[in-house]
């Protein structure tokens, strides 16, 4: 156990920090920035993780294209070679001139916090990590449905040494490569705490990526400090935070870390008119495209909204601004990166969702009730009342306080407005994706506006009289924010773990894997009432759809297309004519169900033998 833990703790920095650090050395140098491109130690430390994630993905994609078997030593070598190349580039660019340039450039103080600010940030982070750890301690054995599906593909990469052909647009390769890389290097399996710990890592780094974005947009250390509390501690368990980590919503968790990074470079690129930042925006955006389609989709809408709003507010100079931006994107570094990523997308690896059918499914008029948008009440319960109230306050305050022609104004408003419309009335933007998935991204601009609201509040009320009332109001607001925002965390301590249920599921899966012939026998298991059932497929590693599964019942009623119903009928109505016909058609001869629910029904059916019975799971053989 100790050796496994040590391997994991050493592998994570090697895979998810080292490449990003060296990459930044090659671009920015060791200490301060070169040629006016200011980037502080704090930002470099934060960006090391998302950069590493993208770099490791790109390395794995390249190795796969070169038909090099993905194994631990190969990955270690490839990462080290990348680091050496970056170090050589750093020496070439900064080596001899390093000390002189570092003396010339003034240290960036945007993230040089005062003692009390640092203490506040640390307390917020202690609370954030403590709440998440407490929550995850009851869910840490891998059992979540989404995580099980993802880990099947990760295990496929590990077993074959090659990237899989998904055959469906639901999965994106970037969701799986990093887990496979950590496994191949450390040897820590996917049916351990490893996947959840990596997601927790990305989730915590996500708090930092939001903070550096806020730091650059508002140029206020107070706002950055407050953002750690808002993003880290408020609703620390609700989606897209702790529950997405334990639930294995891999793409969203990575997306919530990468979107602020892309926005950060986009903001700095336009504000400081720097080609390096343009290039790094392209780099992070391409990384997101390889990682999560929905996050990339949301980012495209967010950037479009910011750009359009900024151009509208600066209508008189619109051609001048567009001309400047075009010149910025047509400089050598961005062009080189555009070329590299075009090569990657066209030649090395095209993401599975890059096809007209998948794009067509996500755009247009909403086709299902789950995609027509949320009411304000639903949005409130989704993102949390405290965050929504603070966000609204930030929206109003920034309306008066920010200069409308500044980029930060378009950032604060455009980002929030477009995500709000995508959640509330997606049809207005021809968005056809589940509203609950989109609503989770509202969290990002709301953190931005909420942090702004909490800090700027006092600046609006400056007179003694108004200060008294504003103080009373502030404390009332804070009481509401803290009680409401931490209410989900309080539930953590009432929760009971499901470890026994999960282990019973694993035992039944191991039993079937050891005794049946997967070339002849067809297994059907129940997703509705078996805990952690999606991990069944990892015991067989035969096919993504093996064993068959009775899914959530409402999924069988799909107004957009006919769905097969046999997997439902063979469990719900096994003795009906439809059920019997399904058994004959599919060849299913083993059924794993919850012992207390469907198990009792199956015991009454004369055509089945019961070959396995535990407290939680029964397995029946079709005679």
């Amino acid at each position, binding site marked *: *156990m100790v050796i*496994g*833990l040590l391997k*994991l*703790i050493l592998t994570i920095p090697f895979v998810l920090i080292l490449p990003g650090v060296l990459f930044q050395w090659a671009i920015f140098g060791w200490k301060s920035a070169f040629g006016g491109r200011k980037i*502080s*130690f*704090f930002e470099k*430390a934060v960006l090391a993780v998302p950069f590493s994630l993208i770099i490791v993905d790109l390395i794995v994609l390249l190795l796969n294209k070169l038909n090099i078997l993905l194994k631990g030593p190969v990955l270690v070598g490839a990462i080290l070679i990348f680091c050496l190349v970056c170090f050589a580039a750093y020496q070439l660019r900064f080596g001899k001139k390093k000390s002189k340039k570092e003396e010339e450039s003034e240290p960036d103080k945007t*993230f*040089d*916090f*005062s*003692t009390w*600010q*640092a203490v506040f*940030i*640390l307390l917020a*982070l*202690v609370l954030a*990590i403590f709440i*998440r*750890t407490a929550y*995850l*301690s009851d869910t*840490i*054995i891998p059992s979540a449905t989404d995580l099980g599906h993802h880990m099947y593909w990760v295990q496929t990469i590990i077993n074959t040494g090659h990237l899989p052909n998904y055959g469906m647009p639901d999965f994106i390769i970037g969701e799986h490569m990093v887990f496979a890389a950590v496994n191949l290097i450390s040897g820590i399996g996917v*049916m*351990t*705490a490893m996947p*959840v*710990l990596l997601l*927790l*890592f990305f989730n*915590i780094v996500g708090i930092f990526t939001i903070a550096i974005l806020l730091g650059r947009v508002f140029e206020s250390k107070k706002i950055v400090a407050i953002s750690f509390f808002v993003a880290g501690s408020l609703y620390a368990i609700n989606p897209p935070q702790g529950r997405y980590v334990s639930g294995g919503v891999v793409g969203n968790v990575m997306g919530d870390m990468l979107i602020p990074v892309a926005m950060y470079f986009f903001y700095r690129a336009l504000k400081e008119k720097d080609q390096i930042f343009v290039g790094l925006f392209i780099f992070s955006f391409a990384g997101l495209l390889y990682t999560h389609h929905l996050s990339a989709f949301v980012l495209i809408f967010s950037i479009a909204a910011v750009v359009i709003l900024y151009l509208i507010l600066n209508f008189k100079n619109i051609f001048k601004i567009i001309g400047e931006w075009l010149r910025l994107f047509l400089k050598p570094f961005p062009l080189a990166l555009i070329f590299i990523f075009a090569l990657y997308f066209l030649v090395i690896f095209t993401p599975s969702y890059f096809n007209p059918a998948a794009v067509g499914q996500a755009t247009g008029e909403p086709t299902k009730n789950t995609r027509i948008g949320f009411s304000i009440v639903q949005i409130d319960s989704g993102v949390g009342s405290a965050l929504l109230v603070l966000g609204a306050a930030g929206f109003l305050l920034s309306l008066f306080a920010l200069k409308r022609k500044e980029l930060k104004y378009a950032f604060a408003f455009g980002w929030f407005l477009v995500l709000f419309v995508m959640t509330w009335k997606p049809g207005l933007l021809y968005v056809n994706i589940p509203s609950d998935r989109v609503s989770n991204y509202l969290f990002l601009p709301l953190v931005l506006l909420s942090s702004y609201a909490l800090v700027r509040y006092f600046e609006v009320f400056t007179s003694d009289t108004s200060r008294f009332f504003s103080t009373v109001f502030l404390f009332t607001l804070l009481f509401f924010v803290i009680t409401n925002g931490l209410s989900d965390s309080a539930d953590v301590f009432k929760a009971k*773990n499901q*470890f*026994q249920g999960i*282990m*019973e599921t694993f*035992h039944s899966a191991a*039993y079937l894997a050891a*005794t*049946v*012939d997967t070339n002849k*026998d067809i297994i059907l298991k129940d997703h509705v009432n078996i805990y952690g059932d999606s991990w069944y497929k990892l015991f067989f590693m035969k096919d993504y759809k093996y064993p068959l599964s009775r899914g959530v019942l409402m999924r069988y009623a799909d107004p957009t297309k006919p769905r097969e119903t046999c997997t439902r009928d063979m469990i719900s109505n096994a003795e009906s004519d439809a059920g019997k016909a399904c058994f004959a058609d599919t060849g299913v001869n*083993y059924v794993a169900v919850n012992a207390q629910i469907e198990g009792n029904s199956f*015991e009454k059916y*004369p055509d089945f*033998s*019961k*070959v*396995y*019975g*535990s*407290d*939680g799971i029964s*397995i029946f*053989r079709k*005679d």
Partner: protein
Amino acid sequence: MSSKIIIIAVAILLIISFSVLFVIETKNHNYDYNKTWSVAYFENPRDNSLDFAIENHEGVAAEYGYKIFVGDDKVIDEKVEINAGAKQQISPVIPSERLSGNKVLIEVNYKSKDYKIYKSL
């Protein structure tokens, strides 16, 4: 300087958090640790053999009773002591002429819990 302290402190906090969660997962990823359940199953579900096993994951050594019925007739009624975390394999001996065409039911019980498995031969 403060930003360096924050980064280092978070690294330490994450290592502590990861260690705690890793240890919890490793300990609990076990059929026995803090669990109370049992299971009975046929050693080979694919054929008509009646060899079966009982696994004790109740956390303590336990005495399991098992009865075997052929059709409506009880042919075996035995008890078996199984240590915590252990598995007991049982190969019942029943004349083959009594088995053909019948349903063979094995009823395992521990305290108030019953585990039934059966095959139609």
